[in-house]
């Protein structure tokens, strides 16, 4: 990857505000995600981390500010939102696989119906991505027959099949048993090494230490601190960050 491309901005957020009724959940967020960057967002619950990344693909609408994905501004126009969603992958805490479809069908649904890729080609690509998350032998099973860790890896593969510019992770390991967290994190580390742009909301600090380019700390709807992992964990700048780290480490 050449240098010029490395600096390309994938997602840019400026002056983002969001309210849930009277509750001001996001208070002026500015954030730029560059190509192949890994950004980890952490912070106490209710701090607006999930709301922030759910705004990026329009699952939550924002009240003020500008979000651009690859130069396209996210508006309230349905076609525009759908176009951006096809380019932004998302992995959920609860996996949200489609239980009535086999693993392979879960993976090919988007490519076939949204990207209009021929079925055979979509299936080949799906198997490729299943291999990438080390689960190709489960292609013809149904989600209900898989463990939580396997389901989450399928969910990651499902996002990859859309060939997204960026992957969003919303606490991907929070619903997993401890022994399954590792297998999911390993897959995510592999993706990071492959240069996939990622924004990850997580409390897995070891993941942040090993692959993140930036660690963001959010509290009460604001980004309090943005730092490299070394700085963030060794010499945090803000009192609230220190307090938070002392509680979770």
């Amino acid at each position, binding site marked *: 990857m050449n240098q010029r491309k490395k600096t390309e901005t994938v997602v840019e957020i400026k002056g983002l505000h969001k309210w849930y009724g009277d509750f001001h959940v996001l208070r002026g967020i500015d954030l730029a995600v560059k190509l192949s960057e890994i950004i980890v967002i952490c912070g106490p619950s209710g701090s607006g981390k999930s709301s922030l990344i759910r705004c990026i*693909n*329009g*699952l939550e609408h924002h009240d003020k500010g500008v979000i651009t994905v690859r130069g396209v501004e996210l508006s309230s126009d*349905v076609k525009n939102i*759908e*176009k951006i*969603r*096809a*380019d*932004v*992958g*998302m992995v*959920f805490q*609860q996996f*949200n*696989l*489609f*239980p*009535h479809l086999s693993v392979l069908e879960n993976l090919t*649904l*988007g490519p076939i*119906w*949204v990207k209009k890729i021929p079925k055979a080609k979509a299936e080949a690509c799906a198997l490729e991505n299943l291999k990438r998350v080390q689960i190709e032998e489960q292609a013809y099973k149904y989600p209900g027959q898989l463990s939580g860790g396997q389901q989450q890896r399928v*969910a990651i593969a*499902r*996002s990859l099949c*859309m060939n997204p510019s960026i992957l969003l992770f919303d606490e991907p390991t929070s619903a997993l048993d401890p022994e399954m967290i590792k297998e999911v994190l390993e897959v995510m580390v592999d993706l990071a090494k492959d240069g996939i742009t990622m924004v990850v909301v997580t409390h897995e600090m070891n993941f942040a230490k090993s692959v993140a380019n930036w660690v963001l700390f959010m509290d009460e709807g604001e980004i309090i601190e943005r730092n490299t992992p070394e700085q963030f964990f060794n010499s945090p700048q803000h009192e609230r960050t220190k307090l938070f780290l002392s509680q979770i480490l």
Partner: protein
Amino acid sequence: MKAFFLKWNRAVKWSRKNLFSGPLSTLITVLLMVFLFKTFFPLFNWAIAEAHWNTTAMECREGGGACWSFIGEKARYILFGHYPRSEQWRAVFFILSIFLLFFLGQFRRLWSKYLIWACAVFPFVGTLLMRGGFPGLELVKMEDWGGLPLTLLLAFVGIVVSYPLGILLALGRRSSMPVINALSVCYIELIRGVPLISILFMGSVMFPLLLPEGVTISKVLRAQAAMILFSSAYMAEVVRGGLQAIPRGQYEAAKAIGLGYGQTMGLVVLPQALKIVIPPTVNTFIGLFKDTSLVFIISLSDLLFTTKASFKDAEWLGFSVEGYFFAAFIYFVFCYFMGRVSFRIETEMSR
């Protein structure tokens, strides 16, 4: 011999434990047995032992048992009403095809788009076949239809049309667009709040007044429309129950890969929701099937109507019980098959 005693011993033990475990249970057992003997044997005697099978009305009256000869004599009229005799093969064909569809529906191997299409299209093809009016098939006016084919037609066209309508109404009721939402809610609440009989009356008496002069719509079609309007409202609420059971995450995951509203519903939400509501769906269908018997009040000659009409033959007066038994049996057979197919589908889909 030894084996027999062993079995006998086990039977005695079982009945002591389950039927005669104490004074109260003994009393209940005895009472129930008396009740069974008092009801079953007279019924058996009436319906089979002393029944008349192939006799004249006079012979029937002299004996005591059921007069199935009456059914033999009247079956043709009860089943087909005034549908022309020479054309009745069309009605028979229609009925047999429905049985065939029921039969094929039992086998998972045969489940395919084609079978679903066959089920969806068949009622309309059947109507065309029954009506005729094109080269090769003589026209039989809808007013002349009667008996079982009319009942089946009202029921199955009703089912096939009200199912998709109900789905649309359910989606409308959950829509965030205020106009569509309000229309759906109004429609559903209005139709559910009114008895079917009154909708049938409106269709047959009031609706023609609204039509411009000279335009007439067959009474059968008006009854059919009323049945569809009625059952689609119920269907809508059944489907809504299924939609509510689908977790929000499913919608979000579908959206997150870029699926639009129609795709999200058609590919992700509805396949799951409709599967959940198979039992109440079939419940509604069976209800609709039996409700077709209400069309007698606008004097359409459905199965129950022709059954009753057959009682009026002066020569065969007084055999209404047999007639009702026959009609009940036919209704039961169809409802049983519907229930069975649904049960098969449920068990196969939950694997």
